[in-house]
């Protein structure tokens, strides 16, 4: 268990390092939902190359790293109806809120942005409530 915390901390610093690189070099906030979402809805057409390159790196690097580690597992529930419903909520929600865990959480809180802090309180609160309700109603997902 403690090993997981150490890996969490190391991985976290790497995530923050990536966000710092994207800010200081490219001058952008590293928010996964914004980078992808503006491609999907067309609002990020002028910066499409930068967005696509970011997403390509986000797929390729961990893909290779996971292969080198002998594979990885998301342990995602096999219930595709729940998965689709969850994906839809995450897609609509992050675009209404204009950010997710990386944009509001990592990039927002680190600059003491009120919006980032409020968003984080609401998504963690709703997430915790959902986990408790899901276990009570569905016996866990």
């Amino acid at each position: 268990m403690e090993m997981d915390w150490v890996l969490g901390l190391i991985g976290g610093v790497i995530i923050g390092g990536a966000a710092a690189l994207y800010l200081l070099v490219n001058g952008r906030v590293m928010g996964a939902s914004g980078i992808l979402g503006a491609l999907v809805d067309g609002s990020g057409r002028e910066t499409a190359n930068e967005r696509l390159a970011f997403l390509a790196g986000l797929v390729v690097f961990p893909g290779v790293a996971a292969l080198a580690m002998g594979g990885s597992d998301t342990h995602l529930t096999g219930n595709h109806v729940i998965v689709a419903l969850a994906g839809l909520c995450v897609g609509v929600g992050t675009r209404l809120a204009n950010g997710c865990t990386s944009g509001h959480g990592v990039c927002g809180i680190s600059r003491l942005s009120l919006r980032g802090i409020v968003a984080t309180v609401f998504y963690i609160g709703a997430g915790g409530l959902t986990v408790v309700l899901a276990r009570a109603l569905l016996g866990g997902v």
Partner: protein
Amino acid sequence: MRAVYAFLAGGVFGVGLLISGMTDTRKVIGWLDVFGDWDPTLAFVMGGAILPMAIAWRVAAARGTPLLGGDFPARPEPTIGWNLVIGSTLFGAGWGLSGLCPGPAVASLTWGGAGGLVFLAAMAAGMYGAPPIRSRIDAMSTA
């Protein structure tokens, strides 16, 4: 050049997500499960990520311009609207239901299997459909 560094940043971000365990939905759900067998890993990840970023914002303020030119992102108006509250709540519900948020969902594309693809497709559909909902919520809250 912008694309090269974007590719690198995305790559480093993805490796961090993998190492930290954030692509494992059990760790995320375990952290949100405060009344169950609570797993504190995500707090370490968040803390670890915020640290270098807090320094980066200070460096940005001191430098004035990004290395590749242009402007640093302006600090958004500190207004808390219904879109922020409703959106974050919806996002949190989907996050708790699946254990996936946008970054890890993309990062695990190569090993996430059919379920991962279902999540990505549904998330993209939600992102595509969001702008009109956003405008409607804005119109209602300013009416």
